[in-house]
Protein backbone atom coordinates (compact mmCIF):
# COMPACT_ATOMS: atom_id res chain seq x y z
CA UNK A 1 0.00 0.00 0.00
CA UNK A 2 2.70 2.33 0.99
CA UNK A 3 4.45 1.57 -2.23
CA UNK A 4 1.46 2.77 -4.19
CA UNK A 5 1.45 6.15 -2.55
CA UNK A 6 5.13 6.46 -3.12
CA UNK A 7 4.80 5.54 -6.76
CA UNK A 8 2.05 8.06 -7.32
CA UNK A 9 4.19 10.72 -5.72
CA UNK A 10 6.96 9.75 -8.05
CA UNK A 11 4.67 10.11 -11.01
CA UNK A 12 3.73 13.60 -9.92
CA UNK A 13 7.39 14.40 -9.76
CA UNK A 14 7.76 13.43 -13.36
CA UNK A 15 4.81 15.48 -14.51
CA UNK A 16 6.01 18.34 -12.38
CA UNK A 17 9.40 18.15 -13.99
CA UNK A 18 7.95 18.01 -17.46
CA UNK A 19 5.39 20.73 -17.06
CA UNK A 20 7.16 23.17 -14.83
CA UNK A 21 10.82 22.68 -15.49
CA UNK A 22 10.95 21.89 -19.16
CA UNK A 23 8.06 24.08 -20.04
CA UNK A 24 6.96 27.45 -18.89
CA UNK A 25 5.40 26.99 -15.48
CA UNK A 26 3.03 29.78 -16.03
CA UNK A 27 1.36 28.06 -18.93
CA UNK A 28 -0.08 25.46 -16.62
CA UNK A 29 -2.31 27.89 -14.87
CA UNK A 30 -3.01 30.58 -17.39
CA UNK A 31 -6.36 30.82 -19.06
CA UNK A 32 -7.04 32.55 -22.34
CA UNK A 33 -8.63 35.36 -20.48
CA UNK A 34 -5.75 36.03 -18.17
CA UNK A 35 -4.64 39.56 -18.48
CA UNK A 36 -1.21 41.00 -18.03
CA UNK A 37 -2.07 42.45 -14.68
CA UNK A 38 -3.25 39.17 -13.23
CA UNK A 39 -0.01 37.39 -13.91
CA UNK A 40 1.88 38.50 -10.82
CA UNK A 41 -1.07 37.36 -8.70
CA UNK A 42 -0.99 33.96 -10.35
CA UNK A 43 2.73 33.70 -9.81
CA UNK A 44 2.28 34.47 -6.18
CA UNK A 45 -0.65 32.10 -5.67
CA UNK A 46 1.16 29.14 -7.11
CA UNK A 47 4.49 30.16 -5.66
CA UNK A 48 6.02 29.98 -9.12
CA UNK A 49 8.98 32.10 -8.21
CA UNK A 50 9.93 30.16 -5.16
CA UNK A 51 12.60 27.47 -5.06
CA UNK A 52 11.71 24.09 -6.48
CA UNK A 53 10.79 22.18 -3.34
CA UNK A 54 8.18 24.73 -2.44
CA UNK A 55 6.88 24.88 -5.97
CA UNK A 56 6.60 21.12 -6.02
CA UNK A 57 4.78 21.01 -2.73
CA UNK A 58 2.29 23.61 -3.91
CA UNK A 59 1.88 21.71 -7.16
CA UNK A 60 1.02 18.46 -5.40
CA UNK A 61 -1.25 20.19 -2.93
CA UNK A 62 -3.19 21.68 -5.78
CA UNK A 63 -3.38 18.35 -7.54
CA UNK A 64 -4.97 16.79 -4.52
CA UNK A 65 -7.48 19.59 -4.32
CA UNK A 66 -8.44 19.10 -7.91
CA UNK A 67 -6.58 21.94 -9.53
CA UNK A 68 -4.73 20.27 -12.32
CA UNK A 69 -4.20 23.37 -14.33
CA UNK A 70 -6.13 24.96 -17.07
CA UNK A 71 -6.55 23.81 -20.61
CA UNK A 72 -6.68 26.62 -23.05
CA UNK A 73 -7.77 24.51 -25.96
CA UNK A 74 -10.81 23.34 -24.06
CA UNK A 75 -11.42 26.51 -22.14
CA UNK A 76 -11.89 24.35 -19.12
CA UNK A 77 -9.90 23.28 -16.15
CA UNK A 78 -7.95 20.15 -16.98
CA UNK A 79 -9.67 17.91 -14.48
CA UNK A 80 -13.11 18.90 -15.71
CA UNK A 81 -12.23 18.27 -19.33
CA UNK A 82 -10.59 14.94 -18.52
CA UNK A 83 -13.38 13.91 -16.23
CA UNK A 84 -15.99 14.43 -18.91
CA UNK A 85 -14.24 12.04 -21.23
CA UNK A 86 -13.14 9.55 -18.61
CA UNK A 87 -16.19 7.23 -18.88
CA UNK A 88 -15.79 6.92 -22.63
CA UNK A 89 -12.25 5.67 -22.30
CA UNK A 90 -13.17 3.33 -19.49
CA UNK A 91 -15.98 1.90 -21.56
CA UNK A 92 -13.63 1.31 -24.47
CA UNK A 93 -10.91 -0.20 -22.33
CA UNK A 94 -13.30 -2.48 -20.51
CA UNK A 95 -14.76 -3.75 -23.75
CA UNK A 96 -11.25 -4.34 -25.02
CA UNK A 97 -10.33 -6.34 -21.94
CA UNK A 98 -13.44 -8.45 -22.41
CA UNK A 99 -12.30 -9.29 -25.94
CA UNK A 100 -8.83 -10.08 -24.71
CA UNK A 101 -9.91 -12.36 -21.89
CA UNK A 102 -12.78 -14.02 -23.74
CA UNK A 103 -10.53 -14.98 -26.60
CA UNK A 104 -7.12 -15.11 -25.01
CA UNK A 105 -7.82 -17.48 -22.16
CA UNK A 106 -9.69 -20.18 -24.09
CA UNK A 107 -7.20 -19.99 -26.95
CA UNK A 108 -4.40 -20.39 -24.47
CA UNK A 109 -6.01 -23.42 -22.86
CA UNK A 110 -6.72 -25.09 -26.17
CA UNK A 111 -3.22 -24.35 -27.30
CA UNK A 112 -1.79 -26.04 -24.25
CA UNK A 113 -4.04 -29.07 -24.49
CA UNK A 114 -3.34 -29.63 -28.16
CA UNK A 115 0.29 -28.83 -27.70
CA UNK A 116 2.31 -28.94 -30.92
CA UNK A 117 -0.66 -29.94 -33.01
CA UNK A 118 -2.47 -27.79 -35.51
CA UNK A 119 -4.72 -25.71 -33.22
CA UNK A 120 -1.66 -24.86 -31.17
CA UNK A 121 0.30 -23.61 -34.17
CA UNK A 122 -2.63 -21.60 -35.41
CA UNK A 123 -3.19 -20.00 -32.03
CA UNK A 124 0.44 -19.13 -31.62
CA UNK A 125 0.51 -17.57 -35.02
CA UNK A 126 -2.54 -15.49 -34.21
CA UNK A 127 -0.98 -14.43 -30.93
CA UNK A 128 2.27 -13.51 -32.60
CA UNK A 129 0.48 -11.51 -35.25
CA UNK A 130 -1.46 -9.74 -32.55
CA UNK A 131 1.68 -8.61 -30.83
CA UNK A 132 3.22 -7.41 -34.08
CA UNK A 133 0.29 -5.45 -35.47
CA UNK A 134 0.23 -1.69 -35.17
CA UNK A 135 -3.05 -0.94 -33.42
CA UNK A 136 -3.79 2.24 -35.35
CA UNK A 137 -3.34 0.48 -38.65
CA UNK A 138 -5.54 -2.36 -37.54
CA UNK A 139 -8.23 0.12 -36.64
CA UNK A 140 -8.06 1.70 -40.07
CA UNK A 141 -8.19 -1.62 -41.85
CA UNK A 142 -11.16 -2.70 -39.76
CA UNK A 143 -12.94 0.49 -40.72
CA UNK A 144 -12.11 -0.14 -44.33
CA UNK A 145 -13.44 -3.65 -44.36
CA UNK A 146 -16.34 -3.61 -41.95
CA UNK A 147 -17.62 -0.17 -42.72
CA UNK A 148 -16.69 0.80 -46.19
CA UNK A 149 -16.57 -2.43 -48.13
CA UNK A 150 -19.59 -3.89 -46.44
CA UNK A 151 -21.50 -0.69 -47.09
CA UNK A 152 -20.55 -0.68 -50.75
CA UNK A 153 -21.69 -4.21 -51.12
CA UNK A 154 -24.98 -3.25 -49.58
CA UNK A 155 -24.47 -5.49 -46.60
CA UNK A 156 -25.20 -4.44 -43.05
CA UNK A 157 -22.12 -2.76 -41.71
CA UNK A 158 -20.66 -1.41 -38.56
CA UNK A 159 -20.34 2.29 -37.95
CA UNK A 160 -16.93 3.73 -38.36
CA UNK A 161 -16.65 6.38 -35.77
CA UNK A 162 -17.96 8.10 -32.77
CA UNK A 163 -19.71 6.56 -29.86
CA UNK A 164 -23.23 6.74 -31.13
CA UNK A 165 -25.25 8.03 -34.02
CA UNK A 166 -25.92 11.66 -33.19
CA UNK A 167 -28.98 11.98 -35.36
CA UNK A 168 -30.49 8.88 -33.84
CA UNK A 169 -29.77 10.14 -30.39
CA UNK A 170 -31.92 13.19 -30.89
CA UNK A 171 -34.96 11.01 -31.05
CA UNK A 172 -33.82 8.73 -28.27
CA UNK A 173 -31.89 10.86 -25.89
CA UNK A 174 -29.46 9.16 -23.59
CA UNK A 175 -29.70 9.97 -19.93
CA UNK A 176 -26.31 9.79 -18.41
CA UNK A 177 -26.24 8.00 -15.10
CA UNK A 178 -22.82 6.52 -14.82
CA UNK A 179 -21.38 7.96 -17.98
CA UNK A 180 -20.95 4.44 -19.27
CA UNK A 181 -23.51 4.50 -22.01
CA UNK A 182 -23.75 0.76 -22.33
CA UNK A 183 -25.03 0.58 -18.79
CA UNK A 184 -27.00 3.80 -18.94
CA UNK A 185 -29.04 2.86 -21.97
CA UNK A 186 -29.71 -0.52 -20.50
CA UNK A 187 -31.04 0.70 -17.19
CA UNK A 188 -33.09 3.47 -18.73
CA UNK A 189 -34.64 1.05 -21.15
CA UNK A 190 -33.34 2.91 -24.16
CA UNK A 191 -32.89 -0.16 -26.32
CA UNK A 192 -32.53 1.64 -29.59
CA UNK A 193 -29.52 3.50 -28.37
CA UNK A 194 -28.26 0.45 -26.54
CA UNK A 195 -27.89 -1.37 -29.82
CA UNK A 196 -26.35 1.66 -31.42
CA UNK A 197 -23.80 2.04 -28.68
CA UNK A 198 -22.84 -1.59 -28.90
CA UNK A 199 -22.48 -1.40 -32.64
CA UNK A 200 -20.15 1.54 -32.28
CA UNK A 201 -18.17 -0.21 -29.61
CA UNK A 202 -17.34 -3.39 -31.48
CA UNK A 203 -14.64 -2.30 -33.89
CA UNK A 204 -12.58 0.00 -31.67
CA UNK A 205 -12.62 -2.37 -28.72
CA UNK A 206 -11.60 -5.27 -30.89
CA UNK A 207 -8.71 -3.31 -32.36
CA UNK A 208 -7.56 -2.25 -28.91
CA UNK A 209 -7.93 -5.70 -27.44
CA UNK A 210 -6.25 -7.57 -30.26
CA UNK A 211 -2.77 -6.66 -29.14
CA UNK A 212 -3.15 -7.83 -25.57
CA UNK A 213 -4.90 -10.96 -26.81
CA UNK A 214 -1.60 -12.33 -28.02
CA UNK A 215 0.13 -11.67 -24.76
CA UNK A 216 -2.57 -13.24 -22.60
CA UNK A 217 -2.85 -16.25 -24.88
CA UNK A 218 0.84 -17.00 -24.69
CA UNK A 219 1.01 -16.69 -20.93
CA UNK A 220 -2.05 -18.87 -20.51
CA UNK A 221 -0.57 -21.50 -22.76
CA UNK A 222 2.77 -21.43 -21.00
CA UNK A 223 1.38 -21.63 -17.49
CA UNK A 224 -1.14 -24.30 -18.46
CA UNK A 225 1.62 -26.46 -19.90
CA UNK A 226 3.63 -25.93 -16.76
CA UNK A 227 0.74 -26.85 -14.47
CA UNK A 228 -0.17 -29.98 -16.41
CA UNK A 229 3.28 -31.34 -15.71
CA UNK A 230 2.89 -31.01 -11.97
CA UNK A 231 2.67 -33.94 -9.57
CA UNK A 232 -0.75 -33.08 -8.22
CA UNK A 233 -2.17 -33.57 -11.69
CA UNK A 234 -0.87 -37.14 -11.62
CA UNK A 235 -2.62 -37.66 -8.30
CA UNK A 236 -5.83 -36.18 -9.63
CA UNK A 237 -5.77 -38.52 -12.60
CA UNK A 238 -4.99 -41.47 -10.36
CA UNK A 239 -8.18 -40.80 -8.49
CA UNK A 240 -10.08 -41.68 -11.60
CA UNK A 241 -11.33 -38.16 -12.23
CA UNK A 242 -12.42 -37.43 -15.75
CA UNK A 243 -10.01 -35.45 -17.87
CA UNK A 244 -12.39 -32.51 -17.98
CA UNK A 245 -12.50 -32.30 -14.21
CA UNK A 246 -8.75 -32.57 -13.97
CA UNK A 247 -8.27 -29.70 -16.37
CA UNK A 248 -10.98 -27.34 -15.26
CA UNK A 249 -10.88 -27.97 -11.56
CA UNK A 250 -7.33 -28.82 -10.74
CA UNK A 251 -5.23 -27.29 -13.47
CA UNK A 252 -7.02 -24.13 -14.43
CA UNK A 253 -7.08 -22.40 -11.10
CA UNK A 254 -3.35 -22.87 -10.78
CA UNK A 255 -2.68 -21.77 -14.32
CA UNK A 256 -4.65 -18.55 -13.93
CA UNK A 257 -2.26 -17.19 -11.35
CA UNK A 258 0.55 -16.04 -13.65
CA UNK A 259 -2.03 -14.99 -16.21
CA UNK A 260 -3.71 -12.62 -13.80
CA UNK A 261 -0.37 -11.01 -13.06
CA UNK A 262 0.22 -10.40 -16.73
CA UNK A 263 -3.25 -8.95 -17.06
CA UNK A 264 -1.98 -5.98 -15.12
CA UNK A 265 0.64 -5.40 -17.78
CA UNK A 266 -2.03 -5.79 -20.40
CA UNK A 267 -3.94 -2.88 -18.89
CA UNK A 268 -0.84 -0.76 -19.38
CA UNK A 269 -0.82 -1.75 -23.00
CA UNK A 270 -4.48 -0.84 -23.35
CA UNK A 271 -3.95 2.58 -21.85
CA UNK A 272 -1.10 3.13 -24.25
CA UNK A 273 -3.15 2.01 -27.21
CA UNK A 274 -6.10 4.16 -26.23
CA UNK A 275 -4.82 7.44 -27.71
CA UNK A 276 -4.15 5.72 -31.02
CA UNK A 277 -7.43 3.82 -31.17
CA UNK A 278 -9.54 6.74 -30.06
CA UNK A 279 -7.95 8.95 -32.68
CA UNK A 280 -8.60 6.49 -35.47
CA UNK A 281 -12.21 5.89 -34.47
CA UNK A 282 -12.96 9.42 -33.35
CA UNK A 283 -13.90 8.02 -29.99
CA UNK A 284 -14.47 10.89 -27.54
CA UNK A 285 -12.18 9.69 -24.83
CA UNK A 286 -9.22 10.99 -22.87
CA UNK A 287 -6.72 9.53 -25.27
CA UNK A 288 -8.01 11.47 -28.19
CA UNK A 289 -8.14 14.53 -26.02
CA UNK A 290 -4.48 14.16 -25.26
CA UNK A 291 -3.61 13.69 -28.90
CA UNK A 292 -5.53 16.76 -29.96
CA UNK A 293 -3.85 18.65 -27.18
CA UNK A 294 -0.53 17.93 -28.82
CA UNK A 295 -1.65 19.62 -31.99
CA UNK A 296 -2.79 22.62 -30.02
CA UNK A 297 0.24 22.78 -27.79
CA UNK A 298 -1.88 22.28 -24.73
CA UNK A 299 0.66 20.81 -22.33
CA UNK A 300 -1.47 20.89 -19.16
CA UNK A 301 -3.94 18.52 -20.77
CA UNK A 302 -1.24 16.07 -21.76
CA UNK A 303 0.17 16.07 -18.26
CA UNK A 304 -3.31 15.54 -16.89
CA UNK A 305 -3.74 12.52 -19.11
CA UNK A 306 -0.43 11.13 -17.92
CA UNK A 307 -1.50 11.45 -14.31
CA UNK A 308 -4.84 9.79 -14.87
CA UNK A 309 -3.28 6.98 -16.87
CA UNK A 310 -0.83 6.30 -14.06
CA UNK A 311 -3.66 6.34 -11.55
CA UNK A 312 -5.70 3.86 -13.54
CA UNK A 313 -2.71 1.58 -13.92
CA UNK A 314 -1.98 1.67 -10.21
CA UNK A 315 -5.59 0.82 -9.40
CA UNK A 316 -5.57 -1.97 -11.96
CA UNK A 317 -2.46 -3.48 -10.42
CA UNK A 318 -4.08 -3.25 -7.03
CA UNK A 319 -7.04 -5.22 -8.34
CA UNK A 320 -4.63 -7.74 -9.81
CA UNK A 321 -2.95 -8.16 -6.44
CA UNK A 322 -6.28 -8.77 -4.78
CA UNK A 323 -7.30 -11.30 -7.41
CA UNK A 324 -3.96 -12.99 -6.98
CA UNK A 325 -4.48 -13.36 -3.25
CA UNK A 326 -7.93 -14.75 -3.92
CA UNK A 327 -6.68 -17.36 -6.36
CA UNK A 328 -3.66 -18.51 -4.43
CA UNK A 329 -4.42 -19.43 -0.84
CA UNK A 330 -0.76 -19.48 -0.02
CA UNK A 331 -0.59 -15.70 -0.23
CA UNK A 332 -1.53 -13.78 2.86
CA UNK A 333 -1.63 -10.08 3.22
Amino acid sequence: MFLLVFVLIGVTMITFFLSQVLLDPLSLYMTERTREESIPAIIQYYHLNDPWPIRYAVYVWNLIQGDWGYSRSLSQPVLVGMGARFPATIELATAAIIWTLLAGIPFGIISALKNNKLPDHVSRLVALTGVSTPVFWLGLILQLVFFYYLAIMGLPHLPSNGRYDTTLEIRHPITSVTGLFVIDTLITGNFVMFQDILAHLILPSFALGFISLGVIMRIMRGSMLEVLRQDYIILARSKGLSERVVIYRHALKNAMIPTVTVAGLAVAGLLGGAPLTETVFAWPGMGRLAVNAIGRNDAPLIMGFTLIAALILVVANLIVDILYAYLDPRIKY
Partner: protein
Amino acid sequence: MQRPSTWSPAIAEVKYALHLLVQNKVVLVGTIIAVSVLVTAAIGPVIISPEVANTIYLPGRLAPPSNQHWLGTDDYGRDLLQVIILSTRLDVSAGLIIVGTDLLIGVLLGAFSGFIGGKFDEGMMRVTDIFFSIPGLVLALAVAAALGRGLNNLIVAIIIVGWPGYTRILRGQVLAEKERLYVDALRSLGIGRFRIILRHIIPNTIYPVLVQATLDLGGIILTFAGLSFLGFGASALTPELGRLITAGQQYIFQAPWLVAFPGVAILIISLAFNLMGDGIRDVLDPRLRR
Protein backbone atom coordinates in the same frame (compact mmCIF):
# COMPACT_ATOMS: atom_id res chain seq x y z
CA MET B 1 49.84 -9.64 -17.41
CA GLN B 2 46.42 -10.10 -18.93
CA ARG B 3 44.08 -12.48 -17.20
CA PRO B 4 41.60 -13.91 -19.66
CA SER B 5 38.34 -12.15 -19.10
CA THR B 6 35.06 -13.98 -19.01
CA TRP B 7 34.13 -12.61 -22.41
CA SER B 8 35.86 -15.33 -24.47
CA PRO B 9 33.72 -18.28 -23.40
CA ALA B 10 30.76 -16.00 -23.78
CA ILE B 11 31.59 -15.47 -27.43
CA ALA B 12 31.99 -19.20 -27.97
CA GLU B 13 28.55 -19.77 -26.51
CA VAL B 14 27.05 -17.21 -28.82
CA LYS B 15 28.41 -19.12 -31.77
CA TYR B 16 26.90 -22.37 -30.51
CA ALA B 17 23.59 -20.64 -29.92
CA LEU B 18 23.53 -19.37 -33.47
CA HIS B 19 24.10 -22.90 -34.64
CA LEU B 20 21.06 -24.10 -32.72
CA LEU B 21 19.02 -21.20 -33.96
CA VAL B 22 19.32 -22.39 -37.50
CA GLN B 23 17.62 -25.66 -36.74
CA ASN B 24 14.13 -24.44 -35.74
CA LYS B 25 12.22 -23.82 -38.95
CA VAL B 26 9.70 -21.17 -38.10
CA VAL B 27 12.30 -19.17 -36.27
CA LEU B 28 14.59 -19.61 -39.22
CA VAL B 29 12.04 -18.06 -41.51
CA GLY B 30 11.59 -15.18 -39.13
CA THR B 31 15.30 -14.65 -38.85
CA ILE B 32 15.74 -14.67 -42.58
CA ILE B 33 13.03 -12.06 -42.97
CA ALA B 34 14.54 -10.02 -40.18
CA VAL B 35 17.91 -10.10 -41.85
CA SER B 36 16.37 -9.12 -45.16
CA VAL B 37 14.70 -6.23 -43.45
CA LEU B 38 17.99 -5.11 -42.03
CA VAL B 39 19.62 -5.41 -45.41
CA THR B 40 16.83 -3.44 -47.03
CA ALA B 41 17.16 -0.79 -44.41
CA ALA B 42 20.84 -0.56 -44.98
CA ILE B 43 21.04 -0.55 -48.74
CA GLY B 44 17.64 0.97 -49.48
CA PRO B 45 18.82 4.53 -49.81
CA VAL B 46 21.67 3.27 -51.91
CA ILE B 47 19.70 1.60 -54.65
CA ILE B 48 16.82 4.01 -54.54
CA SER B 49 17.82 7.58 -54.47
CA PRO B 50 16.65 9.40 -51.33
CA GLU B 51 15.64 12.21 -53.61
CA VAL B 52 12.66 10.14 -54.57
CA ALA B 53 11.18 11.11 -51.23
CA ASN B 54 11.37 14.75 -52.08
CA THR B 55 10.13 14.50 -55.62
CA ILE B 56 6.60 15.70 -55.81
CA TYR B 57 4.68 14.85 -58.91
CA LEU B 58 1.14 15.93 -58.33
CA PRO B 59 -0.43 14.82 -61.61
CA GLY B 60 0.37 11.24 -60.76
CA ARG B 61 -0.89 11.24 -57.20
CA LEU B 62 -3.12 8.61 -55.65
CA ALA B 63 -2.75 6.18 -58.47
CA PRO B 64 -3.78 2.61 -57.72
CA PRO B 65 -1.28 -0.26 -57.97
CA SER B 66 -0.25 -0.85 -61.55
CA ASN B 67 2.61 -2.20 -63.57
CA GLN B 68 4.38 1.08 -63.31
CA HIS B 69 3.88 1.53 -59.61
CA TRP B 70 3.54 -1.85 -57.96
CA LEU B 71 2.01 -0.47 -54.84
CA GLY B 72 0.48 2.65 -56.28
CA THR B 73 1.41 6.24 -55.52
CA ASP B 74 0.84 8.39 -52.50
CA ASP B 75 -0.68 11.83 -52.21
CA TYR B 76 2.52 13.46 -53.37
CA GLY B 77 2.78 11.32 -56.42
CA ARG B 78 5.68 9.30 -55.10
CA ASP B 79 5.95 5.61 -55.90
CA LEU B 80 4.76 3.86 -52.77
CA LEU B 81 7.02 0.86 -53.03
CA GLN B 82 10.10 3.02 -53.24
CA VAL B 83 9.03 5.22 -50.39
CA ILE B 84 8.32 2.22 -48.19
CA ILE B 85 11.73 0.78 -48.91
CA LEU B 86 13.32 4.07 -48.06
CA SER B 87 11.36 4.30 -44.83
CA THR B 88 12.59 0.99 -43.53
CA ARG B 89 15.92 2.59 -42.87
CA LEU B 90 14.42 5.23 -40.63
CA ASP B 91 12.11 2.93 -38.69
CA VAL B 92 14.58 0.12 -38.26
CA SER B 93 17.50 2.29 -37.29
CA ALA B 94 15.34 4.24 -34.88
CA GLY B 95 14.35 0.96 -33.29
CA LEU B 96 17.94 -0.21 -33.07
CA ILE B 97 19.16 3.05 -31.62
CA ILE B 98 16.42 3.09 -29.01
CA VAL B 99 16.88 -0.50 -27.92
CA GLY B 100 20.64 -0.19 -28.03
CA THR B 101 20.73 2.90 -25.88
CA ASP B 102 18.23 1.46 -23.45
CA LEU B 103 20.35 -1.68 -23.21
CA LEU B 104 23.42 0.34 -22.48
CA ILE B 105 21.79 2.44 -19.80
CA GLY B 106 19.86 -0.45 -18.36
CA VAL B 107 22.78 -2.84 -18.18
CA LEU B 108 25.12 -0.36 -16.57
CA LEU B 109 22.61 0.92 -14.06
CA GLY B 110 21.29 -2.54 -13.32
CA ALA B 111 24.71 -4.05 -12.82
CA PHE B 112 25.91 -1.34 -10.49
CA SER B 113 22.64 -1.23 -8.66
CA GLY B 114 22.60 -4.95 -8.07
CA PHE B 115 26.24 -5.28 -7.23
CA ILE B 116 26.64 -2.31 -4.95
CA GLY B 117 23.29 -2.64 -3.32
CA GLY B 118 22.40 -0.50 -0.37
CA LYS B 119 20.69 2.84 -0.68
CA PHE B 120 21.63 3.23 -4.31
CA ASP B 121 19.90 -0.01 -5.15
CA GLU B 122 16.86 0.88 -3.11
CA GLY B 123 16.56 4.21 -4.82
CA MET B 124 16.96 2.69 -8.25
CA MET B 125 14.21 0.20 -7.59
CA ARG B 126 11.83 2.93 -6.51
CA VAL B 127 12.63 4.90 -9.62
CA THR B 128 11.93 1.93 -11.85
CA ASP B 129 8.69 1.32 -9.97
CA ILE B 130 7.59 4.82 -10.82
CA PHE B 131 8.38 4.36 -14.47
CA PHE B 132 6.52 1.09 -14.54
CA SER B 133 3.35 2.67 -13.27
CA ILE B 134 2.94 4.91 -16.28
CA PRO B 135 1.95 3.18 -19.50
CA GLY B 136 4.82 3.33 -21.95
CA LEU B 137 3.19 5.10 -24.81
CA VAL B 138 1.58 7.63 -22.52
CA LEU B 139 4.86 8.59 -20.93
CA ALA B 140 6.55 8.79 -24.29
CA LEU B 141 3.72 11.01 -25.40
CA ALA B 142 4.18 13.31 -22.45
CA VAL B 143 7.94 13.52 -22.79
CA ALA B 144 7.76 14.06 -26.53
CA ALA B 145 5.21 16.78 -26.01
CA ALA B 146 7.43 18.46 -23.47
CA LEU B 147 10.52 18.22 -25.62
CA GLY B 148 8.83 19.42 -28.75
CA ARG B 149 8.43 18.01 -32.22
CA GLY B 150 11.22 16.48 -34.10
CA LEU B 151 12.74 13.12 -34.81
CA ASN B 152 15.53 13.31 -32.26
CA ASN B 153 13.19 14.32 -29.51
CA LEU B 154 10.92 11.41 -30.27
CA ILE B 155 13.79 8.96 -30.09
CA VAL B 156 14.95 10.43 -26.81
CA ALA B 157 11.43 10.20 -25.44
CA ILE B 158 11.11 6.51 -26.22
CA ILE B 159 14.57 5.84 -24.83
CA ILE B 160 13.57 7.45 -21.57
CA VAL B 161 10.58 5.17 -21.33
CA GLY B 162 12.41 1.93 -21.97
CA TRP B 163 15.52 1.73 -19.79
CA PRO B 164 13.92 0.66 -16.48
CA GLY B 165 12.93 -2.70 -17.89
CA TYR B 166 16.47 -3.80 -18.63
CA THR B 167 17.72 -2.37 -15.38
CA ARG B 168 15.33 -4.56 -13.44
CA ILE B 169 16.17 -7.72 -15.35
CA LEU B 170 19.89 -7.28 -15.12
CA ARG B 171 19.78 -6.35 -11.48
CA GLY B 172 17.96 -9.57 -10.72
CA GLN B 173 20.60 -11.54 -12.54
CA VAL B 174 23.42 -9.68 -10.84
CA LEU B 175 21.96 -10.26 -7.40
CA ALA B 176 22.24 -13.98 -7.98
CA GLU B 177 25.56 -13.80 -9.72
CA LYS B 178 27.38 -11.85 -7.07
CA GLU B 179 26.85 -14.68 -4.59
CA ARG B 180 28.94 -16.97 -6.71
CA LEU B 181 32.29 -17.98 -5.36
CA TYR B 182 34.42 -16.56 -8.09
CA VAL B 183 33.35 -13.08 -7.12
CA ASP B 184 34.78 -13.54 -3.68
CA ALA B 185 37.89 -14.97 -5.22
CA LEU B 186 38.34 -11.94 -7.44
CA ARG B 187 37.69 -9.55 -4.59
CA SER B 188 40.25 -11.25 -2.41
CA LEU B 189 42.77 -10.80 -5.18
CA GLY B 190 42.24 -7.12 -4.77
CA ILE B 191 40.47 -6.45 -8.04
CA GLY B 192 38.33 -3.38 -7.89
CA ARG B 193 34.55 -3.62 -8.05
CA PHE B 194 34.39 -1.66 -11.23
CA ARG B 195 36.49 -4.17 -13.12
CA ILE B 196 34.69 -7.09 -11.65
CA ILE B 197 31.40 -5.73 -12.83
CA LEU B 198 32.55 -4.84 -16.29
CA ARG B 199 34.69 -7.78 -17.17
CA HIS B 200 33.07 -10.59 -15.27
CA ILE B 201 29.60 -9.92 -13.93
CA ILE B 202 28.13 -8.33 -17.01
CA PRO B 203 29.21 -10.96 -19.54
CA ASN B 204 27.77 -13.68 -17.34
CA THR B 205 24.45 -12.06 -16.74
CA ILE B 206 23.79 -10.38 -20.00
CA TYR B 207 21.97 -13.16 -21.85
CA PRO B 208 18.44 -12.71 -20.52
CA VAL B 209 18.61 -9.02 -21.23
CA LEU B 210 19.81 -9.58 -24.75
CA VAL B 211 16.98 -12.01 -25.28
CA GLN B 212 14.51 -9.47 -23.95
CA ALA B 213 16.00 -6.79 -26.17
CA THR B 214 15.46 -8.77 -29.35
CA LEU B 215 11.93 -9.49 -28.22
CA ASP B 216 11.36 -5.80 -27.54
CA LEU B 217 12.66 -4.59 -30.86
CA GLY B 218 9.44 -5.32 -32.67
CA GLY B 219 7.38 -3.55 -30.05
CA ILE B 220 9.64 -0.51 -30.01
CA ILE B 221 9.27 -0.14 -33.73
CA LEU B 222 5.50 -0.28 -33.26
CA THR B 223 5.66 2.44 -30.64
CA PHE B 224 7.85 4.57 -32.83
CA ALA B 225 5.54 4.18 -35.78
CA GLY B 226 2.55 4.86 -33.57
CA LEU B 227 3.89 8.09 -32.22
CA SER B 228 4.94 9.14 -35.69
CA PHE B 229 1.43 8.44 -36.80
CA LEU B 230 0.20 10.86 -34.18
CA GLY B 231 2.43 13.56 -35.54
CA PHE B 232 5.63 13.36 -33.60
CA GLY B 233 8.97 12.78 -35.12
CA ALA B 234 9.40 12.99 -38.81
CA SER B 235 8.07 15.84 -40.87
CA ALA B 236 5.67 15.52 -43.75
CA LEU B 237 7.89 14.45 -46.60
CA THR B 238 10.33 12.29 -44.64
CA PRO B 239 9.82 8.66 -45.59
CA GLU B 240 8.56 6.99 -42.46
CA LEU B 241 5.99 4.27 -42.21
CA GLY B 242 3.83 5.81 -39.51
CA ARG B 243 3.80 9.11 -41.33
CA LEU B 244 2.70 7.43 -44.52
CA ILE B 245 -0.29 6.03 -42.74
CA THR B 246 -1.18 9.41 -41.31
CA ALA B 247 -1.10 10.90 -44.76
CA GLY B 248 -3.07 8.02 -46.14
CA GLN B 249 -5.76 8.30 -43.54
CA GLN B 250 -7.55 11.08 -45.33
CA TYR B 251 -7.79 9.06 -48.50
CA ILE B 252 -8.51 5.75 -46.91
CA PHE B 253 -11.65 5.04 -48.86
CA GLN B 254 -10.45 6.31 -52.20
CA ALA B 255 -6.91 5.04 -52.03
CA PRO B 256 -6.75 2.29 -49.44
CA TRP B 257 -3.37 1.07 -50.64
CA LEU B 258 -1.84 4.12 -49.06
CA VAL B 259 -2.84 2.92 -45.63
CA ALA B 260 -2.68 -0.80 -46.21
CA PHE B 261 0.82 -1.31 -47.55
CA PRO B 262 2.87 0.72 -45.11
CA GLY B 263 0.99 -1.03 -42.31
CA VAL B 264 1.77 -4.41 -43.76
CA ALA B 265 5.40 -3.36 -43.89
CA ILE B 266 5.33 -2.48 -40.21
CA LEU B 267 3.66 -5.77 -39.47
CA ILE B 268 6.27 -7.76 -41.37
CA ILE B 269 9.16 -5.97 -39.73
CA SER B 270 7.73 -6.36 -36.27
CA LEU B 271 6.74 -9.97 -36.85
CA ALA B 272 10.16 -10.89 -38.17
CA PHE B 273 11.95 -9.45 -35.18
CA ASN B 274 9.48 -11.03 -32.81
CA LEU B 275 9.99 -14.43 -34.40
CA MET B 276 13.71 -14.04 -34.26
CA GLY B 277 13.48 -12.94 -30.64
CA ASP B 278 11.29 -15.93 -29.81
CA GLY B 279 13.76 -18.25 -31.39
CA ILE B 280 16.68 -16.75 -29.57
CA ARG B 281 14.81 -17.07 -26.31
CA ASP B 282 13.87 -20.68 -26.91
CA VAL B 283 17.40 -21.56 -27.81
CA LEU B 284 19.12 -19.70 -25.03
CA ASP B 285 16.70 -20.06 -22.21
CA PRO B 286 16.57 -23.69 -21.12
CA ARG B 287 20.26 -24.15 -21.58
CA LEU B 288 21.34 -21.27 -19.46
CA ARG B 289 19.86 -21.53 -16.02
CA ARG B 290 21.75 -18.60 -14.66
